[in-house]
């Protein structure tokens, strides 16, 4: 159900954009109004989310420790998997965000006869996720050439490295392929791994179909159908500089690409994609494991009812005296 529904959502989006552009002639709406709405929703939504998380305090220091603690001087601490300093935490977070450290631990449990439990090598999810995310990042960086004039040099570097493969005269970007492969892999594992299928919601398929739609329309434009790149840049720069204009000669395929990106942006803050912001705040990773060395303060720590020693002695005084246990009041 989730799959069909999500596919339908993306299908309807594509149809709607096509209809708007081709039949109704609403190029300005799709090309120049939609992006503002989408970016506003994206930024507003993300700020709302981050403020929402930020408003709730972190009452306790609860890192999940993935290695040896710092204790006695002659025991070597695991400073990245169990950091006790801020530098260590930065290192741990960098590993998580840039290399998906925790996902790298993944294994697959299997029950064999005997009974014998085995934990098999399973780094595919890690690899797939890493390939997808890094490709995504590089594709986004490459797209900056549409939004900048002059184009900053790092964009050219990325293009140069990414496009070292050539098909005829044109560069074949590696990240175009890996992005699509990555998304496809993530989608297929949702279809075929029974547990993952069981937990999947429409909200898990929608982003993948959107990304697939964006990727495929982009690849079609670049390698198969062709698009007037100068005109696209004119549109993009116009939108960016708040002087939106709709140049002639941009095909519907581009509007589909552009419209789906807008949809993804607007959807972002209200979906699981907010993990992009959330991962930075996660209290099991971004705190040092030093709660015995430095007191962590809970802003809402409130007094509680306790059973005092006096109350205790009051109840047990005679028994304590008989047992030779010292008491406060004879």
């Amino acid at each position, binding site marked *: 159900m989730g799959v069909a*529904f999500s596919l339908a959502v993306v299908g309807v989006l594509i149809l709607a954009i096509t209809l708007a552009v081709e039949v109704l002639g609403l190029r300005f709406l799709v090309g120049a109004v939609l992006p503002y709405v989408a970016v506003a929703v994206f930024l507003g939504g993300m700020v709302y989310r981050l403020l929402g998380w930020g408003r709730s305090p972190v009452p306790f220091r609860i890192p999940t420790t993935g290695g040896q603690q710092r204790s006695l001087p002659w025991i070597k601490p695991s400073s990245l998997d169990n950091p006790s300093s801020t530098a260590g935490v930065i290192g741990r977070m960098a590993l998580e965000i840039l290399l998906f450290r*925790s996902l790298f631990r993944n294994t697959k449990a299997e*029950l064999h006869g005997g009974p014998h439990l085995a934990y098999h090598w399973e780094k595919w999810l890690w690899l797939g996720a890493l390939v997808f995310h890094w490709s995504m990042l590089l594709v986004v960086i490459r797209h900056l050439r549409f939004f900048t004039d002059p184009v900053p040099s790092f964009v050219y570097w990325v293009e140069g490295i990414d496009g070292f493969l050539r098909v005829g005269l044109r560069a074949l970007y590696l990240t175009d392929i890996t992005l699509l492969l990555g998304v496809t892999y993530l989608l297929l594992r949702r279809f075929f791994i029974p547990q993952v299928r069981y937990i999947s919601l429409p909200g898990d398929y929608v982003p993948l179909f959107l990304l697939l739609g964006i990727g495929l329309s982009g690849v079609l434009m670049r390698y198969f159908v062709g698009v007037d790149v100068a005109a696209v840049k004119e549109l993009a720069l116009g939108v960016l500089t708040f002087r939106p204009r709709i140049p002639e000669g941009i095909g519907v395929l581009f509007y589909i690409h552009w419209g789906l990106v807008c949809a993804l942006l607007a959807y972002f803050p*209200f979906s699981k994609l907010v993990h992009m912001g959330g991962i930075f705040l996660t209290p*099991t990773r971004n705190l040092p494991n030093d709660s015995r060395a430095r007191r962590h*303060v*809970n802003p809402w720590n409130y007094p509680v009812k306790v059973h005092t020693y006096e109350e205790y002695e009051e109840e047990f005084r005679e028994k304590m005296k*008989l047992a030779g246990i010292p008491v406060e009041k004879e």
Partner: protein
Amino acid sequence: MASLPKPEELVKIDYNPPRRGWMDNPVEFRRGTWLYAAKPRHLEALGLPNPREWSPEEEDWKLPPEWREIVLEGFKERLERFRSLKLFMDICSRCGACADKCHFFIGTGDPRNMPVLRAELLRSIYRRYFTLSGRMTGKLVGARDLTEEVIKEWFYYFYQCTECRRCSLFCPFGIDTAEITMMGRELLGLLGIYPDWIIAPVANCYRVGNHVGIEPHAFRDMVDFCVDEIENVTGIRVEPTFNRKGAEILFIAPSGDVFADPGIYTFMGYLMLFHEIGLDYTLSTYASEGGNFGLFTSHEVMKRLNAKMYDEARRLGVKWILGGECGHMWRVIHQYMDTMNGPADSLEEPVSPLTGTKFENARSTKMVHICEFTADLIRHGKIQLDPSRNDVFKVTFHDSCNPARAMGFFEEPRYILRKVCNRFYEMPENTIREQTFCCGSGGGLNADENMEMRMRGGFPRANAVGYVREKYGVNLLACICAIDRAVLPALMDYWVPGVGVAGLHELVGNALVMKGEAERTTTLRGEPLKGSGDDENT
């Protein structure tokens, strides 16, 4: 009580999820897989809401009339108080990496025991009542109404999680399902829904000082029993003191070590060690519990029980606190105590009186783990050890969840273990250290009526022990946790018969060469020292 299926039966586990979605599958309370309801008098003793007689098996759970408002109000409050909860509700990508990391999923195949679905039990309610999309589109975004069925499902599955945090280690976003379980249990608590196995110890601990409700004189008797036993084995009479003002150190152990086999042997080990090094310490009958079942109840109850440690240390005027071997106890001390009940102004930065070592890592809480303390003693050559006295054992070591994943406590116990015994074999690497598997009975689930679920949850741990038993003939499972010592014997008997369970300081006690001791012929358990471990149990 339900009869326990045979291991051959239990191990027929189907990992394929059912056709029907989990939201459409109501919970079935099958005997052997859940905990009895809390007796009203315990709730009354603690001033907790809605005390009444009830049972999970019955249709009517006798919830207060405005139960839904109570839960939603409580949920809102916790979202505002805990960034962890709020964030974990929002950012799960349902990648499924955590699914087969949970021992309860491995042992049951029940999809709702995948940590991600355990979290969805709460998340679905969060979506429905606290997000715009959930309010508008409901089931489409995985939201659902809060019904009594949901409350029952929460009770079943939040008490089928031992709060071991193994899932959180593997989650790319660090989502800690233990944290979610803790919140779920707090919400249930607002309706007076607790298991008796947890709330009875809490009530005892609150009033009498320890989970089993040992009154001060009886506590002293039990310690004296250990003292006699030590004398039988070593010829030396150790002299622990109780509630003694002016002692340098307050020693707090989990009470399980004082009254239950095999914990008492660990306790004997502590007493022998302290005697041998001439430590100026005292025990307390008021703070006679290191463990804290409040951790399994709510943050507030955790704080109420934990407060005793600092209060008693202040009253007795000790310099610092030394803590015994216990898992969840150390989660509370390491990650909560100072924040909840600190700062520990009356105490001083802990320094070992024997070696002069400053325990820098405990300079704020002022509480040191016995293994840190002992490892430091051994390192400085302050005690003499004869590891051959443990030659009857082939030992493997179980990392308890809390010291492992909430402290990173790996090398200290291993260092000691290597010094006190000659034959130590590690279990496979996916099952130890930070990846350790729970005993299956932590988190307050160690009641007899829950035996089938405990055996299921403990299956991955037991299976790894079985591996080293087959490969090296291991016959002893060492650990540094009182719950482990209480529950692993049953788990071993069920899955890997022939493997005993011991605390680390029991082995220290065996190996410790004491000044003026009689020649040792037996272990602390009274079993002959000579006698060959190799052909034993085969």
